[in-house]
């Protein structure tokens, strides 16, 4: 009869085996990892689009979109003085060939301004075949990665067909996939052969026990021969000579070599797209009903336009709560973080031109839980932020960035 300990050991081995030989593919890259207050109140993404979702190797994929840098930036997060617009992907399955912020080419990190509006464009080139989930996202210095919306892409073709050629300022065209590889391997191999020869020079003779005993018995001088000394002298003078000579030759071969570049792009925000001053939103109170997973925002909305407006959408941390009667139809079927019926109002009447009205806006959906945003009430900073989209009858859109303290209700 097996002992209980053996059962436990057996189950542990099975578990270890299943982990080792039957791993599940990971389909996420930390979209929900950051605390909700950071995802809601730092980079507020919207209008993110992809040029295509089925590609061949070498095809270009263009990701475009906009983002608003929240005015109510969390106190616990360093200001966005060093940020990097990145793409979350499982390694370089695409290469990034171009990137623009507000129409300005940007190849470095960038400083953003609080309350600023930006648009972006990233051009990627398919490098490896497969099915990949990509997000545009921002690396924020000392804060983490704030993800934008994600999308699945399929790349077909042969990896060998990928080409990535670049012209240097010297006028040479190089292949980034192989540039410098043979030279690097050659130098490593050369030094490795020399190092191995030195090791074998010593390893070929009896090593530990005989040498230890000889040393302990005062016969250490026999352990180093005059030939050993000559070889060591050769190393002492030959290796530095070789190193300095090879370095000088490299200098003469690449006379225009420059140090690594590390500038910071300064990108001016666009004229206000969000909080344009035509529609003003002032939040009075926000409650989150935990069991119902429903956020109710009471806000005073002042419409100074000459058209009536209706609230169509509330978006926060890439979750979109849509008012089905107002919001433009949602066509991206693969996007799973949309609540098509998620937004409701206490009054469906449009807010008339010149009218100021207090409105109760309710965003209700299980996405508060599945996207791990309901954890906000356990954060150190229980303020929420997001974008409120309001539409004129002619379809013109106004966007308001709101922020508010959140009061949980546990009933």
């Amino acid at each position: 009869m097996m002992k209980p300990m053996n059962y436990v050991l057996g189950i542990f081995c099975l578990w270890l085996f299943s982990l080792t030989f039957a791993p599940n593919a990971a389909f996420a890259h930390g979209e929900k990892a950051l605390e909700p207050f950071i995802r809601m109140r730092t980079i507020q993404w919207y209008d993110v689009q992809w040029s295509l979702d089925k590609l061949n190797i070498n095809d270009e994929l263009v990701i475009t979109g906009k983002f608003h840098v929240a005015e109510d930036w969390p106190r616990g997060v360093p200001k966005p003085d060093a940020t990097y617009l990145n793409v979350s992907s499982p390694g370089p399955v695409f290469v990034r060939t171009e990137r623009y912020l507000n129409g300005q080419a940007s190849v470095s990190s960038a400083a953003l301004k609080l309350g600023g509006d930006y648009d972006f464009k990233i051009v990627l080139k398919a490098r490896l075949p497969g099915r990949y989930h990509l997000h545009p996202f921002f690396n924020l210095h000392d804060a983490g990665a704030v993800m934008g919306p994600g999308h699945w892409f399929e790349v077909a073709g042969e990896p060998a067909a990928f080409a990535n050629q670049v012209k240097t300022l010297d006028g040479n065209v190089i292949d980034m996939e192989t540039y410098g590889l043979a030279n690097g391997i050659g130098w490593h191999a050369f030094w490795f052969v020399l190092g191995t020869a030195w090791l074998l020079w010593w390893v070929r003779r009896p090593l530990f026990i005989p040498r230890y005993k000889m040393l302990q018995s005062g016969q250490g001088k026999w352990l180093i021969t005059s030939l050993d000394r000559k070889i060591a002298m050769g190393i002492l003078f030959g290796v530095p000579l070789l190193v300095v000579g090879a370095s000088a030759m490299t200098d003469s071969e690449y006379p225009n070599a420059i140090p690594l570049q590390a500038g910071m792009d300064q990108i001016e925000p666009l004229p206000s797209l969000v909080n344009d001053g035509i529609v003003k939103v002032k939040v009075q109170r926000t409650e989150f009903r935990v069991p119902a997973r429903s956020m109710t925002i009471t806000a005073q909305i002042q419409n100074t336009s000459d058209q009536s407006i209706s609230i169509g959408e509330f978006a926060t941390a890439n979750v979109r709560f849509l008012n089905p009667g107002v919001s433009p139809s949602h066509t991206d079927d693969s996007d799973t973080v949309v609540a098509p019926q998620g937004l409701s109002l206490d009054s469906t009447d449009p807010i008339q031109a010149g009218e100021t009205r207090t409105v109760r806006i309710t965003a209700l959906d299980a996405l508060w839980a599945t996207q791990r945003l309901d954890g906000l009430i356990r954060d150190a900073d229980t303020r929420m932020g997001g974008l409120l989209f309001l539409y004129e009858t002619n379809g013109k859109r106004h966007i308001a960035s709101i922020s508010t303290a959140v009061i949980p209700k546990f009933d």
Partner: protein
Amino acid sequence: MTAKALEIPPKPYTGEKARLTRAYDYLILVLALFLFIGAFHLHVALTVGDWDFWTDWKDRQWWPLVTPLMMITFPAAVQAVLWTNFRLPMGATLCISCLLIGTWIARYFAYHLWNYFPINEVLPATMLPSALVLDAILMLTNSLTITSIFGGMAFALLFYPSNWPIFGMFHVPVEYGGAQLTISDLFGFQYIRAGTPEYLRLIERGTLRTYGQYATPLSAFCSGLLCTLMYPLWWYIGKAFATTKFVKAI
């Protein structure tokens, strides 16, 4: 007569005794190989890290400062054991060779096959020239003090010129996105690294400024000075751990 008799070299082991001691040699060497591949590689990955992982981290200031300082550690400790107990002047070369074996395995399997980075973007640096010179100085001088001062200094000073033939060509300028970049910088931009954004790189940042635009010599000498201190520190660490007292306790 007595003095002359002492000049006769001792006879090498023969027969079963020679076979057994040789078997012991191989046992220790194989164990040491795997130990140093694992332990030294881990040490360098944790301390030098991105500076050694990526070509676009290998700047003129921090890379030649940090790398020798962190890489003289294990060589000093192993030299203390192999030289003082066995008169084997190969501790540094052994450690750096093991490190390079581990590094190349990781770069090929983990970075290239698993994470799809081209190998040329993740070429490791070599410290073998520095290690050979360090071993030679220790053997010729048989002095911890002289090896600390001259060996430590040479270990750091040789680092950048040893690696310039490998990485110099990656510093050729390219016009890209309206800016001047090196090919190394371009690797960082093109080949997507989600977890290592550009701003994390320490590129000539800090108070150790250039001298007439020459950044490397300052860093190399600074590193050399620190290596002269790091070397004896790790020598004594190696010596402290080269003991049988733990085995005796068992």
